[in-house]
């Protein structure tokens, strides 16, 4: 039992890192990416290859994974600078689908659908760390570290620039902010930190393949952020925990027919997503109803200001 909870704890920690890093660009920079799983995957593959061929030390695997993911994230930063809204979502979707093909076809690096088998465990203090009891503290510590780093960034002047851009690009520009640079940095930071989750994942499961990094994963992480509360500090963590614990609980319902449990889990997961969005669109850790109304009013005002600004731009 303990092992089960610890195992769940590891997965929650890993997905929390993903949700927190996605929230960083979604909640604060207004970049809604459907390609977050790509960087999770890149981190996992790079981490696994380094562990198998160079060293299984986290001090080797994590920096390598972060650098590669950061470089590749420029492919996402490019459309982020050119387009917004649904166009950017579509661009990130295109990137995600391309990445799936690359992950499945570049067999030398990724092992194809067959994946990479036998990834060595993390070695620390002369011990192999893979049992849930040993791995959980490690994963949780890394998750907390990532959370702290993103918090610090959000509350720095960089973070304030980000939110300024999210709320009104033209206003931020008029304050002399370098929008292209700030947006690019935020995407790079988010991708590099997401890669850390990939490294942990590869070490823990000792097996990775493309199926862990598909569009479904990207949507799952996005759902964690939105269900938890976009732009809140702890929302993504709550979202991650909730979406990972619920399906596990279901499989203990003895009265469900075993052959249908998979489908029923999926149905409840899907329904849960829809129902939460209908009744708590601001997320679980969102503001109270009154605050939400206030915020909505502010948002409306901001939007009105923005469209004014847009009209002026158009008139130029």
């Amino acid at each position: 039992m303990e092992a089960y909870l610890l195992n769940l704890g590891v997965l929650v920690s890993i997905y929390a890192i993903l949700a927190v890093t996605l929230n960083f660009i979604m909640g604060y920079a207004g970049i809604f990416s459907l390609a977050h799983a790509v960087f999770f995957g890149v981190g996992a593959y790079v981490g696994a290859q380094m562990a198998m061929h160079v060293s299984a030390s986290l001090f080797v695997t994590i920096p390598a994974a972060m650098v590669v993911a950061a470089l590749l994230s420029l492919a996402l930063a490019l459309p982020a600078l050119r387009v917004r809204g649904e166009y950017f979502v579509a661009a990130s979707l295109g990137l995600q689908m391309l990445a799936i093909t690359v992950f499945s076809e570049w067999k030398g690096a990724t092992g194809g659908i067959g994946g990479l088998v036998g990834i060595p465990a993390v070695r620390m203090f002369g011990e192999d760390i893979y049992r849930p009891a040993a791995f959980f503290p490690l994963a949780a510590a890394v998750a907390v570290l990532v959370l702290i780093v993103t918090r610090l960034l959000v509350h720095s002047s960089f973070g304030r620039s980000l939110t300024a851009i999210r709320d009104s690009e033209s206003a931020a520009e008029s304050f002399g902010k370098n929008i292209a640079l700030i947006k690019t940095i935020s995407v790079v930071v988010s991708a590099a930190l997401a890669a850390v989750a990939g490294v942990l994942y590869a070490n823990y499961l000792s097996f990775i393949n493309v199926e862990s990094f598909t569009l479904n994963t990207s949507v799952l992480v996005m759902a964690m952020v939105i269900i938890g509360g976009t732009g809140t500090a702890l929302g993504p963590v709550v979202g991650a925990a909730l979406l990972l614990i619920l399906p596990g609980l279901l499989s203990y319902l003895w009265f469900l027919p075993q052959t249908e449990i998979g489908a029923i889990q999926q149905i409840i997961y899907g329904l849960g997503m829809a129902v939460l969005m209908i009744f708590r669109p601001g997320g679980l850790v969102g503001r109270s109803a009154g605050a939400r109304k206030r915020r909505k009013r502010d948002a409306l005002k901001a939007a009105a200001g923005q469209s004014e600004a847009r009209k002026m731009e158009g008139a130029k």
Partner: protein
Amino acid sequence: MLWLQLTLTGLQTGALYALTAVGFSLIFGATRVFHFAHGAAFVLAAYVFYWADTAGLGMIPGIVLAALAAMAFGVAMDRLVYAPIQRHEGSFFTVFVASFGIGIVVENVVGMVFGRSFVTIDSTLSQSRELMEGVYVAPLAWIAIACAAVFFAALQLFLRRTHTGMALRALADSPELIRVFGLDPRRLSSIAFALGSALVVPGAVMTALGSGLNPALGHHVMLISLAATIVGGIGSIGGALVAGFVLGLAENLALIAFPSQWSEAVTFAILFLVIILRPAGLFGRATAH
């Protein structure tokens, strides 16, 4: 001869993509709802048609039932899911997540009812005849292309010649204007969903007769529709039609130059490039910003 064969197959594939994409584009253009569950409407229509066929109801009643199911699903989504979300602060992405969730529900419910494996309707329509040396075309290909042309023409007539149609076209740009003219945006939105969802039926029926069905089909249909809508240019229904054909052709013609496993990636490479190089799409009227 291979290229001619692949062009014809590409046109057949493209015709199926095109109508489904036009449906998505119509909904998205008019209501700005990212209706990810459009693929679910496709699966629903296809399985209703399949059910009608196994129940011996015949082709035409099957098509009618499929259309009713798709339209009912679309309208229900609009009324029960999207409208409440939009009444709150409901951003674009809240809608997306809800829609994706429903897509998962439909896929699994269909799987539980009809089984999760492959089903197909045996029909001579899907069996190819030799057109000339080495070139085979199934009757279904001609039907698909004809369907695309007829439905698209009918839709254009509706959008340009009727009051409701014109109001639909104006809906996305200025809901206020619609209200000023005494029309109900909610009702128009439901009409957009009903029409857009009905447009999945030809593709769904022909997939049931041709390549066959499984409950997970909706995902692919949805991604293609989305790609075609963006490549064609948001708000341009004609653009979605052309883009649907382009993607179908590209997927098949890619087989000449690339190993077969890359053909699906071609679609998304086109999507990504179009967004970066020509964000407004091939036929877009508005810019992306």
